[in-house]
């Protein structure tokens, strides 16, 4: 795992609870009492008529749907080795709770991916420090 080739995120103070949650295999979303959860993490509710700075972290179910996707044939790390070669799926997942996030879909044949396919989260511990939220078909 130490030689993970992909690009790694670096948390900010505001996003640390999100990345810490993933490390514990929990998908935590910043949540406004009035408007519900949002993505990506910000220390306030990004609804222009709300802009509430009282945010709580709530755990998402990890279930969602493929909102849209592409199948990349580019050898972009970490999909640049013999055992992890393109093509691979980059998808926008619509979580059951509403927000959308980019991820990868773990699927044997990328061309079996469909829009609105049901998926659930897979916690990919890519290094000792970083866990990426990925998804697989249900």
């Amino acid at each position, binding site marked *: 795992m130490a030689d993970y080739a992909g690009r790694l995120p670096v948390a900010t103070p505001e996003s640390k609870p999100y990345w810490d949650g993933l490390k514990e295999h929990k998908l935590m979303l910043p949540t406004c009492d009035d408007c519900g959860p949002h993505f990506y993490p910000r220390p306030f509710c990004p609804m222009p008529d709300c802009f509430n700075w009282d945010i709580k972290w709530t755990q998402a179910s990890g279930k969602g749907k493929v909102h849209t996707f592409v199948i990349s044939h580019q050898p972009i790390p970490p999909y640049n080795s013999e055992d992890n070669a393109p093509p691979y799926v980059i998808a926008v997942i619509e979580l059951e709770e509403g927000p959308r996030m980019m991820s990868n879909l773990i699927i044997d044949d990328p061309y079996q991916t469909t829009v609105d396919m049901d998926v659930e989260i897979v916690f990919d511990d890519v290094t000792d420090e*970083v866990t990426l939220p990925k998804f697989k078909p249900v």
Partner: protein
Amino acid sequence: MDQIRHKVAIVGAAETDDLGQLPHMSRLALHAQAAKNALDDAGISLGDVDGLLCAGAIPNEVAEYLGIQPRYIDGTSVGGCSFMIHVRHAVAAIMAGYCDVALVTHGESGRSGVDAPRGGSASSPGGQYEAPFAIGGAPTTFSIPVLRHFHEYGTTKEHLAHIAAATRAWANLNPMAMMGSHRRAPERGGGPITPQDVLNSRMICYPFNLLDCCVVADGGGALVLVSEERAKDYAKDPVYVLGAGEAAAHWMVSQMRDHTTADGYRIAGEAAYKSAGLGPQDIDHCMFYDAFTFTPLMAAEDLGFVPKGEGGPFFAETKTGPDGEVIYKSGPGGDFPMNTNGGGLSYCHTGMYGMFAIIESVRQLRGECGDRQVPDVNVSMAHGPGGMFASAGTLILANA
């Protein structure tokens, strides 16, 4: 809103001497050469420039490099449509008296990478929430909305392929176009292509094959703007700004509100129509930024040229010419002349292509386009996105 109509004109417009592979030129040298060519086109000296607008460079970098000290600057750098936005801002600046002669410059070593800054912070939203999923530049991100559009409206890859073929047909009439017959031999992929050629080309990132993607090039372009009162004092016929709009809708493509509609296109387009007092039916010629085949389809829909979801069949409509040749909807001889320079797909794409779209609008309005001149162009629209449908800029330009 209509107070900007016909108050400011573009009096100079030009690219760098060449476009394509220019490893002997840096980013700033491309800015400077484009500036020289646009100023020469207008017959204005550099010393008269007192407003400077640029993207992909801090205005101070370009000002210092050129040796000028402008009293108005704008470094709006939001991707390919930055230059449409610059024109809009230059109109306001000239009307306000902030400057008299505005120079807009673009230079980008997009292919050779000579002083081409790359990559963002791993702590930025993009670094945290998109980059870790192996996105690799525009082909893997600009493609993200497409399959949702296919799903909602039945748009197909065959539809998109017609846009590539039509745009190549224009490139074949433009001696400057990188993939046109003048510059590139058929065995190296130049010259005419069919929709089937597009579908048969190498897969880059489904749903985009190679020929759905723009070329990658070095180059630059520049514009010179002055007030309407002074516009007739210069070498070429003025091209007036009738309307303009801009918008910032999102930044990361995953956060696009609706992947089948570019909110920025609609906001910028509405402002442009309102300020010009015109609608889509009044536009004779369109330059719709085409980083990929899908990009102009979204523009045609969101700017009101075709109802939402009907862009695919619209662009795939063909007719047969007098010699039995296929005439594409947006190609030479078609009913919807679009991207007549050969587009980002087949003419040139440096990374921030919007400048070249504006230059072609100016040339069509002046009637300078030779073999590719569209008859009776009096009103042209130049429109583009910045980032992945993230920002937008729209210009409505006219020759009277």
